[in-house]
């Protein structure tokens, strides 16, 4: 019998959530006051959940590793947020948003979850507007929309190129109001290091105060993880430097299932790596592909000249340019989905046509757009991105094309959750990028913000009551319980062990090496041989790390090296599981491309007979192999078809 219980309600797709809400238990206001909830994370998911819980009357303890909740990585999202408002009268609907999301995810997500996401999407916009989020407006005063990544309607709401920032500041405002009222206790510069379980239920966390190094215990009736994605396994990514997978990973090691860890999104338009000294990659918004044309030279001679700098890109005549996306995908052209565009860039660069010194860059050219629309229009649309590009590269993109290359951007995989957003550990929830639930094998642009806020404002405030209704007799969790003691000792031992390694090599060295293995062998294009090699290489590197890492300074003070070391220790283990998950999945789907599974023309080939599942990895101990449980995906309402963008 399968261990997986999704708790998806029966009945027609459109009625499921309504019916489910009617069946959920509700906690009375008097009892809410007696219940504590820990929320780890203050991004869109965490801040929206924490403030909503507090407004309902629960006592909330909220944590983030930054110096302020406002700095969670959601702040960096640029392009926009989707919602099925149909304000443009272009025949958008909840069903269409649902369908686009399921198809965009290459049929590897749950119908019921995705439908609910589409269903509540409109309320997110209403909520954000009421909070004072300054969305773009038309002259008539109503909300403006733009279109995004391959869909046929205009449903993306935006606040210039800073949509994530403005949505987060809205949620942060609500959170601040609850902090002021005392209903939320905010712990900033506090990093969760482990989950505490009592009698099989999540009952608290162990935390390190990053400013002082003090290890602290916190108990609660439920624990919600909203800790974002784990893209930094690859070292270089568009994520913030501190983004990490550790909270999720500790939950996994306590028995929570980890789903689809191999599903990683590689974004095609990022500023290329400039050298060994690089720490982080910068995204250039997907919206640029609306007007920019992607190309490399047709001949290697020109490539050589470009690399040497003897010829400028703008001097390469039209007939010597290969607009390879337009050539390969005439109907979608430069607007093919992210995974397709990324692989096509890699294919050209691997074939020797990369246009910068490292051979890992292609052009994104605005020459035609500027000729067609005029410079002022291009400036109005993309001015801030062009400015950012010039500050970083010292190249003026109005005169010379941008250079871009794919980079790690988002992780679709995450903790397994049921329809209520609860993991298989009772009382432990996962929301936002930290869970696996809605994006299948590939996320559509402008859908992560939607999901984070849907989870936090409109899903978990309802579903958590169903669990907590049975907890009202449980007194405040005693952090002197032996489970807290044991978990804390284990953490302290781990810290001491790292500190006392007394090696000679800095943490970053190992992280960069791990990134190299992941990018080369568990990146855009994967095969059995290399995935197996990756597992071995990661293991070896991990051993070296534990033998040779150097952590200067003390544990009982602000110590950024120990912070990094703890996160990296988990990334090794995560990286290995990602490779294993990729090995198990023999098909190509979405962002996961297995070289063994492609069409004659080299396009990704899905295998619905064997691949229509969600993996749910179960930790079996330090020296044992993890076990893969399977949640079968049933498609009752849509029929999976092969994606084609030709």
């Amino acid at each position, binding site marked *: 019998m399968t261990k997986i219980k999704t708790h998806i309600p029966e009945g027609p797709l459109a009625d499921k959530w309504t019916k489910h809400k009617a069946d959920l238990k509700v906690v009375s206001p008097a009892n809410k006051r007696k219940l504590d909830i820990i929320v780890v994370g203050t991004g869109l998911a965490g801040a929206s959940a924490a403030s909503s819980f507090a407004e309902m009357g629960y006592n909330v303890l909220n944590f983030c590793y930054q110096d302020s909740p406002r700095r969670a*990585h959601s702040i960096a999202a640029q392009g926009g947020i989707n919602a099925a408002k149909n304000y443009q009268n272009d025949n958008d609907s909840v069903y269409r948003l649902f369908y686009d999301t399921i198809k965009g995810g290459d049929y590897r997500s749950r119908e019921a979850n995705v439908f609910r996401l589409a269903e509540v999407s409109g309320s997110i916009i209403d909520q954000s507007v009421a909070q*004072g989020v300054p969305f773009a407006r038309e002259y008539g005063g109503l909300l403006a929309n733009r279109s995004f990544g391959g869909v046929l309607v205009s449903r993306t709401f935006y606040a210039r190129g800073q949509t994530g920032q403005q949505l987060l500041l809205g949620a942060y405002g609500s959170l601040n109001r609850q902090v002021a009222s005392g209903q939320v206790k905010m712990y900033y510069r506090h990093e969760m290091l482990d989950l505490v379980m009592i009698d099989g239920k999540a009952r608290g966390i162990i935390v390190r105060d990053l400013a002082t190094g003090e290890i602290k215990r916190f108990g609660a009736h439920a624990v919600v993880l909203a800790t974002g994605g784990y893209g930094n396994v690859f070292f270089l990514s568009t994520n913030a430097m501190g983004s990490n997978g550790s909270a999720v990973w500790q939950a996994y090691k306590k028995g929570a299932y980890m789903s689809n860890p191999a599903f990683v999104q590689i974004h095609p338009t990022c500023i290329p790596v400039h050298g060994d000294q690089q720490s982080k990659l910068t995204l250039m918004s997907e919206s640029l592909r609306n007007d920019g044309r992607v190309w490399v030279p047709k001949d290697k001679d020109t490539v050589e000249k470009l690399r040497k700098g003897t010829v400028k890109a703008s001097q390469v005549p039209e007939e010597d340019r290969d607009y390879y996306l337009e050539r390969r995908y005439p109907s979608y052209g430069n607007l093919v989905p992210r995974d397709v565009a990324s692989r096509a860039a890699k294919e050209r660069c691997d074939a020797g046509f990369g246009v910068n010194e490292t051979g890992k860059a292609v052009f994104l050219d605005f020459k035609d757009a500027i000729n067609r629309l005029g410079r002022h229009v291009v400036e109005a649309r993309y001015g801030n991105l062009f400015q950012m590009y010039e500050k970083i590269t010292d190249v003026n993109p109005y005169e010379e094309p941008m250079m871009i290359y794919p980079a790690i951007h988002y992780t679709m995989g995450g903790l397994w959750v049921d329809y209520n957003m609860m993991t298989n550990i009772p009382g432990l929830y996962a929301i936002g990028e930290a869970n696996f639930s809605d994006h299948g094998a590939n996320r559509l642009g402008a859908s992560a913000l939607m999901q984070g806020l849907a989870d936090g404002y409109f899903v978990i405030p309802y579903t958590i009551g169903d669990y907590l209704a049975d907890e009202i007799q449980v007194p405040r969790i005693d952090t002197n319980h032996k489970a807290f003691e044991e978990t804390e000792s284990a953490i302290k031992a781990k810290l001491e062990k790292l500190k006392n390694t007394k090696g000679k090599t800095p943490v970053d060295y190992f992280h960069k090496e791990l990134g190299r293995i992941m990018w080369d062998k568990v990146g855009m294009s994967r095969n059995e041989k290399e995935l197996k090699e990756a597992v071995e290489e990661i293991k070896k590197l991990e051993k070296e790390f534990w033998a040779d890492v150097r952590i200067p300074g003390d544990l009982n003070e602000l110590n950024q090296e120990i912070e990094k070391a703890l996160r990296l220790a988990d990334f090794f283990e995560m990286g290995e599981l990602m490779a294993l998950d990729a090995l198990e999945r023999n098909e190509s789907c979405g962002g996961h491309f297995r070289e063994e599974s492609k069409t004659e023309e080299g396009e990704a080939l899905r295998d619905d007979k064997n691949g229509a599942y969600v993996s749910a990895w179960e930790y079996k101990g330090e020296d044992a192999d993890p076990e893969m449980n399977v949640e079968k995906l049933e498609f009752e309402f849509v029929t999976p078809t092969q994606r084609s963008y030709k």
Partner: protein
Amino acid sequence: MADKILKQIKVKVWRQKGPKTKGKFETYIVNDISTGTSFLEMMDILNDNLIREGKEPIAFDHDCREGICGVCSLYVNGRPHGPDDDVTTCQLHMRKFKDGETITIEPYRSKAFPIIKDLIVERNAFDRILQAGGYISINTGGVPDGNAIPVSYDDAEAAMDAASCIGCGACVAACKNASAMLFVSAKVSHLARLPQGKVEAARRAKSMVAKMDELGFGNCTNTGACEAECPKGISISNIAKLNREYLCAKIKD
């Protein structure tokens, strides 16, 4: 355009072990830095050297490294966010420096932003000012349809300009009075320009200003240093708007 190599630079950095210890400058040498390297990557390289030499790396705040989270906060060669306009420290690049140059790096210095370690300061005072009223008092759910509240194009744009503040604190660090007026005014005018925010505009201005005074920020004497150093171009005209809102609130009292 093409990157050059800076053969040697000297970095003079403020080192301070903890909040209560005395700090001092130390000078380090960094060799062979590409001008295409970001300033914080140069710091990474320096730290890598220090660790390998058995010394303690320099603590500094950073996260998004793309100018939006507002956490990076260095005072470089006498300017918050260093010698380039309209950028945060993390967007600063080494092409702004010359071979052989001595670069001086300090933490923000302000009573309201105490030093935790080396270049890291505590800016929780900003959160506390916003907790005093920098929001619209609504709960989740029960709000009208998004299009039920029309906002003129110009108001939305002006609100967005003010809302672009990243809470970095450069304005305070640049001000000889350590005033937080630019930061406070940005939030007050963002919300006061929108119909949703007007409802409690008076209360908001009053309580945020009171909190700012309580937390030890100085008075604004209109020097304009804040606007000049703000990486997000927050306009000093917001301060005038705040003063108007504040005055209105006081008159009503």
